């Protein structure tokens, strides 16, 4: 059936209710809700979240915004916590201790702090062991929950509270880690990078594939943060679009080792278009700092080319 956003929003449960306390203009709940819509109506899910913005804003005792079973334990262990839940499911199913027609899907959410950094070990372990689960990283490019500290997902030159743009050091000095490629090199059946753009078709279809591919799957989803990035709440969708159009955030999937870039902009926009909307890059536009934008552009181009090469290489007959 062809994707139709109106029908999906009208007919498919978001599994994630209103009333949560995420900020206006935050990319994460938009992403989480649409991913959860990809669940089949007859299926249930156990959702696991790493400590982070999403957890502390959606499950404040005694209220929860999650309609499915939900578990949070700590910051660095969404991968291993959900491994345990999934192992229990397998065990109980095998022993006939759960209804035969019960189909439960396992979905983890972690920010870039809980995924790229403190949680990468538990994530890597869970994926390598082959648990039947989907791990979603909502990447907002810094530790936003604790007040905008740099992470290994923070882009170079970004102004954060632990990499302030100072007189001597102009923001974060290192390039960001490429987690989707790291996960692709775990040789998982399905890895994708996406964001919420247009009618969210790319996001939805990747979520559906990730959830319904047997085995461990990984989604890296850009989730802008108005506080950390410095944009106004109504600019969320515009920022997402520019991230894709500048190829800052390439959208692609890796299916059984084959790379497919799912969005190639007809005209690749210069990176300034993405950077200038955000206060965290403001200092890059000061006179004398043109080199920063050049360096940033070079890195974006290099990574885009790397992906084009991977796509070509892995799809040769």
């Amino acid at each position, binding site marked *: 059936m062809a994707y139709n956003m109106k029908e999906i929003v009208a007919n498919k449960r978001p599994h994630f209710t209103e009333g949560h306390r995420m900020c206006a203009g935050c990319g994460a709940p938009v992403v989480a809700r649409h991913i959860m819509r990809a669940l089949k109506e007859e299926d*249930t899910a*156990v959702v*696991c979240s790493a400590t982070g913005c999403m*957890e*502390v804003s959606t*499950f*404040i*005792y*005694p209220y*929860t915004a*999650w*309609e*499915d*079973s*939900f*578990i*949070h*334990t*700590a910051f*660095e*262990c969404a*991968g*291993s*916590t*959900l*491994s*345990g*839940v*999934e*192992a*229990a*499911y*397998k*065990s*109980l199913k*095998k*022993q006939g*201790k*759960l*209804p035969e027609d*019960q189909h*439960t899907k396992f979905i983890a959410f972690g920010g870039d702090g809980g995924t790229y950094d403190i949680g990468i*070990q*538990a994530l*890597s*372990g*869970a994926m*390598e*062991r082959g648990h039947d689960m989907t791990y979603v990283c909502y990447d907002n490019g810094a530790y936003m929950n604790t007040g905008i500290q740099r992470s290994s997902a923070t882009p170079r030159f970004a102004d954060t509270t632990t990499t302030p743009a100072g007189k001597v050091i102009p923001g974060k000095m290192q390039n960001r880690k490429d987690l989707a490629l790291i996960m692709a090199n775990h040789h998982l059946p399905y890895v994708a990078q996406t964001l919420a753009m247009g009618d969210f078709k790319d996001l939805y279809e990747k979520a559906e594939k990730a959830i319904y591919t047997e085995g461990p799957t990984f989604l890296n989803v850009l989730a802008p943060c108005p506080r950390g990035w410095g944009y106004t709440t109504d600019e969320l969708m515009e920022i997402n679009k520019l991230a894709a159009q500048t190829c800052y955030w390439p959208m692609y999937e890796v299916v059984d080792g084959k790379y497919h870039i799912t969005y190639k902009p007809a005209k690749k926009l210069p990176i300034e278009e993405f950077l200038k909307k955000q206060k965290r890059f403001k200092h890059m536009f000061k006179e004398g700092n043109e080199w920063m934008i050049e360096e940033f552009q070079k890195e974006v181009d290099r990574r885009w080319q790397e992906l084009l090469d991977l796509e070509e290489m892995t799809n040769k007959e």
Partner: protein
Amino acid sequence: MSIRERLSGNEASATAMKQINPDVVAAFPITPSTEIPQYFSTFVANGTVDTEFVAVESEHSAMSACIGAEAAGSRAMTATSANGLSLMWEMIYIASSLRLPIVMSLVNRAVSGPLNIHNDHSDAMGVRDAGWIMLFSENNQEAYDNLLMAHRIAEHKDVLLPLMVCQDGFITSHSIENIMLEEDSEVKKFVGTYNPEHYLLNRKEPIAVGPLDVQPYLFEHKAQQADAMRASKQVILDVAKDFEKWTGRKYGLFEEYKLEDAELAIVCVNSTAGTTKYVVDRLREKGIKAGLLKLRVYRPFPGEEISKALSHVKAVAVLDKSDSLNSAGGAIFTDVTSSFQVHKVNIPTVNYIYGIGGRDTKSDDIESVYKDLAYIAKTGDIGIPYRYLGLRRD
């Protein structure tokens, strides 16, 4: 019918786990407990158990996976030692706060640093206030029996707390001793099935576990944990009674060995109790009224019962196989002496830190403690209350 066997402490623990047949085991190898997951994976590989074995990449993940599995509605078990437990530390507290009756076999070893793989109790003592029930085992038989009783205690509706069964690394984990095993079917009957009231995989009643729990609630939730710990004492005794009916082997909160008429008493846990019993027997032959209180249940701490059991003796030595590095004494010493104060028992009591990092504790060492106690009982002179046994100062 019980079956006579010869097993090491690790084999005995793995055998108990096999008979319990938990739904999930998640573990990461660490000396001296490594053999437990090793033996257990053989049971899994041969289809002897129904368990999903999760060979995690760290102990932090082992406990996280156990939490996930237990919250999902299954029985989860693990085994670890020393630094493995240290790495779990964060999750140890989360497991008890979520009221998940996970059962762990803790093969006691010195926590780094410096690195040492041998036995002491610094691992267990580091988590003594984490909300886990803690049972100690003198020998292989007790390690086995404590595991067979573990789920009945931990899963009881008045308790719902995780439980660890401790035994001494190498000293009992790797020594082969005679043991009485129970039949698989009898164990299955005794342990029973796990029927949690609320669990993640119940599709009829989705639940949310592990909230952000702020000022209006956390205090009450911690108090509920404390209530459960208090309630567990009676459950431990009730389960022990049922166990005795079944196997004939008797367990309590602690074992009193020739304590009834004793004048000089040692308090200790785990394998040193065996050495102490031997010394007590020898001293009794010489007419010295020596006795032993071997603590089995350390959490909940039976302070009142201990105070009562020791109230008639003339001098007490508490042996701690872990130094608290607080300039005031080891953990068990502090617990025993503060209970004495609360229950108005006034007996000269001294503390010996011993056996650190696997330092051998011989019968002569224990005998020297009784000799010290005889002097204290006679003169009332405690001298230095915080002492060392078997320490070289040269």
